[in-house]
């Protein structure tokens, strides 16, 4: 069944508008590495300050691009796999809210009224419309789940006994995690940041605000990751020419991520005062447990690839690796997912370092952290978004991909870039190089008393890697634009996502119902967060007045 015509239009807007914004995000990514290495020694370039550019890079790439893609991909999967019509009014409302929120936020950042980075960083204070824009954006992203739930329930009634398609389970999990994670951050914005930035309250409880943010900030990572996991489980085995090794593994992974995504945000706050080591320790343990579904995913996807490779004539213990379709321009999507997996191997391992409690002392807030997350959100997730967007946009418009070879080259070049970039930043981070800092003015400036000669090579590796990543993005836009302007081929069949058959199709009742997993997740969140939040909300921690990023004088408030 072809997607509804209006839904096709909405999906196209949801994919193309953030990609257009991403041009600014990527441009500021390349500028970042130049500031970091000292290739640029200035507070601003072309009227945009370093920290303003950094805010744009974070908000556009990590929030706007990822969330729009999750919504657009979610609509595609749900509509296709359940062979159902979805509410166009709901989809349009979601699009309208998300677009208005994104535009409002972006305008405030471009005007220099909100250089507070996407983590908000109170008591640095932004313009109220920056916060309002983000809330509208987030509320817009809540809508799709509630338009899908009735469609899903009707499908279950009409297909009793059948398993819900795995992709739909993955998408619903994605948005259940998102719903749970965004409630605390919406509360932070509405109850704390917004009244404070409007001058209605004179101070803000910073520890509480940080904790509410990271309650959201870590499951955000799984919200980014889950659509890519859906592609790994439902599309990659098919692209490799085989089957999904285990259907159970996919269902278990999605349910386990619902359970464990939220109650572990404190591992971003291991270095914070005001939180007991017991609370930090409990969430540290939960953080390591969340690696289990990812380790199982690594096994299942590798086994699926091996199955495909052996069907293609692969032999031996390791020899089968050579038989996968690495360089086939017709199958240009395969390397987007495959390179993402390779990158994620390193992203996952370094993530375990960050999460490992006492080891965090060495890396917290250093360049190690962006090195790590450019191998996660900047690796499998970003490549999934690029590949998925190109597939869906060209598919819906019935246009050819011009050219398959160039499209195929993008993920390899990107992978090379991320490896060079991250090697530099990991190395610098271990030597104390801070993240999110305009190093070129001081630490990377030989004429400054703060100059650190030993950060020169790490910072320059970061820069060279960043250039390679920039080249990959440039090539991607060449492919995208050439494909968009190519003549459509009306003879093409209606678009549908490739879907894999399961090889082992186990039926395990425990992973076939969302309710117990969601209920357990809520209980676990309450258990993990009750003590720290009670301490923060009830203690004598003074509230802090606001400060603008450009002045040490506090923002005056009315009494």
């Amino acid at each position: 069944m072809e997607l509804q015509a209006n839904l096709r239009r909405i999906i196209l807007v949801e994919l193309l508008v953030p990609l257009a914004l991403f041009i600014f995000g990527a441009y500021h990514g390349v500028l970042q590495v130049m500031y970091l290495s000292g290739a640029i020694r200035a507070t601003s370039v072309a009227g945009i300050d370093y920290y303003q550019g950094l805010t744009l890079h974070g908000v556009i790439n990590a929030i706007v691009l990822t969330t729009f893609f999750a919504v657009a991909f979610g609509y595609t999967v749900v509509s296709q796999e359940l062979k159902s019509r979805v509410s166009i009014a709901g989809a349009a409302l979601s699009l309208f809210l998300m677009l208005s929120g994104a535009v409002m936020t972006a305008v405030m950042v471009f005007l220099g009224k909100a250089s507070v980075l996407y983590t908000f960083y109170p008591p640095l204070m932004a313009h109220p419309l920056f916060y309002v824009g983000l809330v509208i954006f987030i509320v817009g992203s809540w809508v799709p789940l509630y338009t899908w739930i009735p469609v899903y329930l009707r499908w279950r009634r009409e297909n009793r006994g059948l398993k819900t398609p795995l992709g739909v389970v993955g998408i619903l999990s994605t948005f259940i995690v998102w719903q749970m994670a965004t409630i605390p951050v919406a509360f932070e914005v509405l109850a704390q940041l917004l009244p404070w930035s409007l001058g209605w309250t004179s101070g803000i409880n910073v520890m509480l605000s940080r904790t509410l943010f990271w309650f959201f900030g870590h499951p955000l990572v799984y919200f980014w990751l889950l659509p890519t996991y859906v592609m790994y489980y439902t599309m990659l085995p098919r692209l490799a020419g085989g089957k999904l090794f285990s259907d159970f593994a996919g269902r278990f992974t999605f349910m386990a991520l619902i359970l464990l995504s939220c109650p572990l945000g404190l591992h971003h706050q291991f270095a914070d005062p005001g939180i007991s080591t017991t609370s930090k320790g409990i969430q540290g343990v939960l953080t390591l447990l969340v690696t289990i579904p990812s380790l199982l995913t690594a096994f299942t996807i590798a086994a699926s690839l091996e199955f495909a490779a052996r069907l293609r004539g692969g032999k031996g213990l390791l020899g089968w690796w050579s038989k996968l379709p690495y360089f086939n321009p017709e199958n240009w999507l395969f390397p987007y997912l495959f390179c993402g997996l390779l990158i994620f191997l390193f992203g996952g391992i370094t993530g375990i370092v960050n999460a490992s409690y006492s080891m965090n002392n060495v890396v917290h807030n250093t360049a190690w952290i962006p090195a790590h997350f450019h191998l996660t959100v900047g690796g499998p997730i970003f490549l999934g978004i690029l590949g998925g967007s190109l597939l869906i946009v060209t598919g819906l418009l019935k246009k050819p991909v011009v050219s398959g070879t160039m499209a195929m080259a993008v993920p390899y070049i990107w992978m090379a870039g991320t490896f060079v970039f991250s090697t530099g930043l990991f190395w610098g981070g271990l030597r104390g190089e801070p993240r999110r800092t305009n190093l070129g003015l001081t630490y990377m400036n030989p004429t400054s008393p703060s100059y650190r000669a030993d950060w020169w090579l790490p910072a320059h590796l970061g820069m060279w890697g960043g250039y390679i990543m920039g080249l990959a993005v440039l090539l991607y836009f060449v492919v995208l634009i050439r494909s968009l302007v190519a003549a459509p081929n009306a003879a093409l069949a209606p678009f549908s996502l490739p879907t894999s058959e399961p090889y082992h199709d186990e039926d395990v009742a425990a992973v076939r119902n969302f309710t117990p997993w969601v209920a357990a997740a809520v209980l676990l969140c309450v258990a993990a967060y009750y003590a720290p939040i009670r301490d923060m909300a009830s203690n004598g921690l003074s509230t802090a007045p606001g400060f603008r990023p450009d002045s040490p004088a506090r923002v005056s408030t009315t009494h």
Partner: protein
Amino acid sequence: MSINVFEKRAFLVSVASVAVSLGLIAYSTWGMGINVPTCIPLGSKPFQQASVTKHEDKNYEVHYVARMWAFEPTVLRVPTGSTLDIFAMTKDVTHGLLIAGTNVNLMLVPGAVATSRVHFAKPGIYTIVCHEYCGRNHQNMNARIEVSDQIADYSVEGLPTSEGMKLLDAKGCLACHSVDGSAGVGPTFKGAWGAPLQLVDGSTRRFDSALFQEKMSHPDTIVVKDYPPVMPVISLTDDEIAQMEEYLEGLQK
């Protein structure tokens, strides 16, 4: 249909590797004594003043104050083999305190004190960087600790020097009155000395020594217009009054 045997093994290997990791973390935390920063009782009043105190030979307690965009003290020199107990707080936004090449890595959040201990076994210059974005001059915010075989005791640079300023801090005045012109619960001290004050009773008085001493002993008799009458009685010696007045006089616009 039952679960594939290889998948079961993969699951067991995943669980086992997590268990091993947790064991190693537990060992590093309790066996080797490397913990994350601990929690100073919430609501304990932060200190207001940077300082260095020598407890015994090569054992120092250092109070760092962070502000946009500097640390106090800026330079601390200690002999090789020193152990430092570090306490740090911020006077404005959230800052970070990382001593490169050590395990000291703290977040300085308004209203709370962060603490860590570090032992310097090797001589060298250790950079302290602020690693939490704190505004446009974040990249300028650093300090250093110089560890040397050549010195027998500590020396320090960049502590607030004026006795009057220290007193204002110690008596809690700076909680409500700024010295940089910024707004607070009470009027700023900056440029206030000698200037006229509008009082709630409609009169106008100059901020001078007489008014200063009267306000300290009877705060409710002199209330400045537009500010709440919340100032407590503060008892001072004549010496202290002289030092504070000297400092306030110097705080011109």
